[in-house]
């Protein structure tokens, strides 16, 4: 069932947060009087005056990580690609690279993953927690016209003022562009623009151009925050394949177990809920908005799309990320909390409005 899928992905993501690397202050970074990293200090520069992008960066990609084509019209996506995305949803996205222990290819750039950037005069490295490396050549070479297709492609970078512009080509067509499973062809060309705004903030724009699948080039924006005083954690996908043993069923299965809940009960759940137990890389506190429309319940995690909930009982609903949502009432029957249920544990959200 779908709930299991998200739960596994998310439980895997929680591990690095719980298991911290040794606490060691990064040397050479600007600090305020109290010794804390000065996150708004000016951009550091290399000996040749270019911005130095080196550091551990947490990408923040709310809108496009799931659906990179969110801004495209249906007519701008080839019908076969739309069919494929629907099929992948029904198959619970179990062929996503993260499940198959494969590199994410171009979607590393657009996903809320942590990257360690090491900038040297002729080469910039982007290192991922899954121990995959990406090389961006800054030595003036040009992009190959017929590169041998590879998972991570071939990348060259150049400076336009203080913006690092990275052109990439030569990706194989085996990766997905996002969680939903938007495909790409070997004709994909990607241009990334990295601009470090201050010490701890980076703005990223990614332009994708794949005329075999998408009717026009388009650009998505995301950001990244520096993680000072820590190190890249190690996350080896192949340590355990046990998750796949539980990865069974189809997305449509949850509809089979749907129960009808009276509209007056659904109405009691509507409102705004604020995160109490901070979890994950999203901004905190996370907010979940619960609404009722045409007799159905909807949930919207702030910054993401509104999703319909599927009642599994009067208080338990699937269809949300993770295992779903449960509503909690006090002795008087007033709904006070909801629980965002995940394999790792339940995360509490307090109701702030009715």
């Amino acid at each position, binding site marked *: 069932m779908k709930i299991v899928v998200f739960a596994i992905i998310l439980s895997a993501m929680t591990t690095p947060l719980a*298991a911290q*690397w*040794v606490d*060691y202050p990064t*040397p*050479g970074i600007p600090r305020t009087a109290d010794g804390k990293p000065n996150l708004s200090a000016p951009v550091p520069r290399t000996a040749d005056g270019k911005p130095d992008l080196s550091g551990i960066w947490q990408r923040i990609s709310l809108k496009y990580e799931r659906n990179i084509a969110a801004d495209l019209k249906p007519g701008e996506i080839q019908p076969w690609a739309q069919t494929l995305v629907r099929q992948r949803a029904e198959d619970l996205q179990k062929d996503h690279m993260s499940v*198959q*222990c*494969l*590199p994410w290819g171009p979607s590393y750039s657009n996903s809320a993953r942590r990257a360690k950037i*090491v900038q*040297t005069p*002729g*080469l910039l*490295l982007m*290192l991922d927690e*899954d*121990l*995959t*490396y990406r*090389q961006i*050549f800054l*030595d003036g*070479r040009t992009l*190959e016209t017929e*590169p*041998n297709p*590879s*998972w*991570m492609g*071939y990348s060259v970078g150049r400076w336009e003022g203080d913006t690092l512009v990275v052109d990439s080509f030569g990706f194989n067509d085996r990766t997905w562009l996002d969680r939903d499973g938007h495909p790409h062809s070997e004709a994909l060309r990607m241009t990334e623009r990295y601009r470090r705004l201050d010490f701890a903030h980076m703005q990223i724009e990614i332009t994708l151009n794949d005329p075999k699948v998408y009717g026009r080039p388009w650009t998505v924006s995301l950001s990244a925050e520096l993680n000072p005083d820590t*190190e*890249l954690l*190690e996350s*080896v*996908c*192949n*340590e*355990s*394949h*046990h998750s*796949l043993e539980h990865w069974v069923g189809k997305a449509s299965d949850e509809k089979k177990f749907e129960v009808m809940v009276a509209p007056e009960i659904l109405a009691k759940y509507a409102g705004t809920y604020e995160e109490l137990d901070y979890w994950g890389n999203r901004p905190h506190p996370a907010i979940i908005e619960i609404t009722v429309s045409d007799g159905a319940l909807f949930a919207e995690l702030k910054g993401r799309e509104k999703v319909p909930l599927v009642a599994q009982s009067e208080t338990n609903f699937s269809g949300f990320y993770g295992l779903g949502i449960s509503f909690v009432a006090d002795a008087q029957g007033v709904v006070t909390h909801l629980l965002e249920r995940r394999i790792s544990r339940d995360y509490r959200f307090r109701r702030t409005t009715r």
Partner: protein
Amino acid sequence: MKRWFILAALVIIIAVLSSSLSAQWPLHPAPGVPKGPDGKPDLKAPAPRTADGKPDLSGIWIRFDDPEPNGPPPGRPPLVRGGDAGVGFKDGLPFQPWAAELQKKRAAENGLNDPDGLCLPQGPLQYHIDPQPFKIIQTPRQILYISESNYGLRTIYTDGRSLPPQGDVQPYWNGYSIGKWDGDTLVVESNNFHGVDPSNVRGVGLPDSFLGIGWLDHRGSPYTEAMKLTERFRRVNFGLLDIELTVDDPKAYTKPFTVRVAQRIVADGSEMIEFICHENQTFLKLTGRAPH
């Protein structure tokens, strides 16, 4: 049965190697390679140095199988050969009894659980003796060691920090490494590795992949989480890198021992080829351990 495994392993190794040989990136020779009168890279030229005067170990390095056809110079530790760390010692490695037994078992299985075949990170010495190259990128505060082989990504901190005490951080496949200069030799100390648990050698209750933990070499010589590894990297000249490894793991060995590997530079401007172990899981499938 055993033959079958060897055959399967060989087929895969050959398949992997041939693909990386045929699929070359275009050549981009680095500037600054010293050239001899014939215009070819002068491998005997002095080692390059960084702005602060330290030897610069940066470059792509590949295993040098026979740098000393007449044996090691007097007083130098023996070279690792044929994937066997103990080959240069008359009595082999100084195993603790359980470790000797485990090594025998692993060797008898023809490397069935060698992490290289399981698509897991290899042991630190295994990366040095892999037929695939690795790249060193030396920056002032850290030195990166990136192996073409699966998951070989090590950061060696040279910013003056000390090693975290054993057990203070969670164990990592690639351990925690710091580097200091002793003259022209980079001395890298590492600890907090994943390792075999001597009280649970067979990995009871753990996923199968844990049988791929703690492989020092391809003969299956084990190590535990107590291992402290000291590597001495010396760039002898432009073309040669000498690495001495001292393994200090009292739980697996009765005394520390030191071995050596040699690496030669790849100076023709070729790059490491992307190698993704999970792309082709034939070995895992043939041995019944593919995910599905």
